[in-house]
């Protein structure tokens, strides 16, 4: 009886989920580009509040897996459930409204707008009135939230600067800020530290560590020193498939992982 009500009574707004419902389930998800199988047969279950790292060599299909989840490249086979709800065939903006936030491997920001405008838009995307013709006044709560986000990701000092005038590291921080703006239930970070200098790295690692604990997080990261301390579980992908699923303390000893990472990887 309880089961049927939760299934039928679900609305677009975040319905309450009991602890047993996983945050994300991918069931045999596959994605092909023509003849190329970028992702095949990936089944992952992520618990609410879990932090999951995804490792794997270049071309393993990690980013493509993100794209199937957020809807940019919907799966060609399989199912995806977000907090129990089937989102396999939803458009990207619908999935975003259900609580998926993500960053991109190479920043996808609005280069012609300022840092604060980027964050402000990200906040507005999660609110009603998306076609609003009212300019944000000083008391606008969305603008205030954008300012708080700027502080949180430490770009408040350059809030007025246009994206095309700020550094790569700062763009990575704005990326994370925008993904957080909707208060997502599931946050997916795609190599957030990619291309950062040794000096910029700790800033970002700290930013990830300071994320609220109840947030479900999937982190794609090449750098084991960034990935392992920030995860509860680790999934390793290769050639579009999941090859190992383990805990951070055991992953380094796994013979397959050693073969991938120590045999040939940079």
């Amino acid at each position, binding site marked *: 009886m309880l089961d049927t009500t939760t299934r039928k009574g679900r609305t677009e707004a975040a319905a309450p989920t009991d602890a047993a419902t996983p945050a994300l389930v991918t069931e045999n998800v596959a994605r092909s580009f023509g003849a190329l199988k970028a992702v095949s047969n990936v089944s992952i279950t992520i618990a609410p509040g879990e932090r999951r790292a995804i490792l794997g060599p270049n071309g393993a299909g990690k980013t493509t897996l993100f794209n199937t989840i957020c809807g940019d490249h919907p799966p060609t086979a399989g199912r995806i459930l977000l907090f129990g709800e089937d989102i396999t065939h939803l458009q*990207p903006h619908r999935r975003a409204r259900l609580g998926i936030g993500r960053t991109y491997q190479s920043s996808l*920001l609005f280069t012609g707008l300022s840092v604060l405008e980027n964050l402000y838009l990200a906040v507005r995307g999660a609110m009603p009135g998306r076609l609003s013709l009212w*300019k944000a006044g000083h008391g606008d709560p969305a603008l205030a939230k954008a300012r708080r986000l700027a502080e949180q990701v430490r770009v408040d000092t350059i809030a007025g600067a246009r994206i095309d005038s700020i550094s790569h590291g700062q763009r990575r921080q704005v990326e994370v800020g925008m993904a957080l703006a909707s208060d997502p239930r599931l946050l997916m970070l795609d190599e957030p530290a990619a291309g950062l200098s040794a000096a910029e790295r700790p800033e970002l690692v700290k930013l990830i560590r300071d994320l609220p604990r109840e947030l479900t997080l999937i982190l794609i990261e090449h750098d084991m020193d960034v990935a392992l301390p920030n995860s509860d579980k680790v999934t390793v992908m290769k050639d579009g498939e999941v090859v190992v699923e383990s805990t951070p303390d055991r992953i380094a000893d796994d013979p397959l992982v050693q073969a991938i990472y120590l045999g040939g990887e940079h």
Partner: protein
Amino acid sequence: MSLMSRSHWTLTALVLAILVSMPLLLPDFWLSGILGRSLIYGIVALSITFLASYGGFISLAQTMLAGIAGYTVAILAPTAIPASQSAVSYWLAMPLAVLAATLAGAVVGLIAIRTRDIYLLMITLALAVGFSLFAQSNIDWFNGYEGIRNVVGPELFGQPFRAHTVFYYVSLTLAALLYLMVLYVVRTPFGLVLQGIRDNPRRVAALGFDVAVHRIAAFAMAGFIAGCGGVLITFYNIGITPGSIGMTATVNVLVMSVIGGLGHPVGAFIGAVIFTLIDTFAATIYDRDRFNTLIGLVFLGIVVASPDGVLGLGKRLAGRGKRKDAGDGGTPH
């Protein structure tokens, strides 16, 4: 969030003040034949520049949308020749005409929903040519090749609409309002999303915005702007013909936008003034046939010298004098 920097406001106010005082300085021909005409075609060019500058869409359907407003007001006009069965007051016909253009703009946006760049150009051009051919062949409503004459517009302040000063001030007021509307809208959530779509539609969707809906709304707004221009152009020409909204007219308005510069809405009016000056005076010096050659050469010259039009040329020249101060990079909040 201010619309423009203080120096921009000062400049805008100064230019407006000069334009307002023009009836004291200029002879009638210049007032309506050059400035007024530039303003009304500039409004249609503004609808192109708005879409291009903030949405990244180049639409060739804007002259058609102006034409839809023009034909609507002509068909409903109480003074029209041939007389219409459906005549109403101008005060009702005008808003209906603008509404028709707005809705038609939304339809164009819907038809072109998935296209960008060259494909968008092709599809909007096809719509424009198609509409012009339809108007030419339809007798019942559009009176075919001859079009609709004697659409003189309403009386204002006891004077005919086409009285030079009346026409000029109405055009100036409307152009200024639409220009400021564009500058305002691009700072609202709707306008910011539009610029987001220009920079990165994928990210816009990932933030929860429905890109399709925003695109349609942007085309509707551009249709509204073009429709306002279309009504004024129809009064200016005292009627409308299929030729006035055909391929040549479509290209002319695009040329205005590009000459002026697609980077900022003011470019539409700069381009319109340059175009009108060349159009008026080249035709008296040369014969009519050579006009297209001349405007073509000017177009080529400006675009080669500065891909972002006169506006970009001006900016570059100013930038050579003094480096742009870093704080001016767009701090709208």
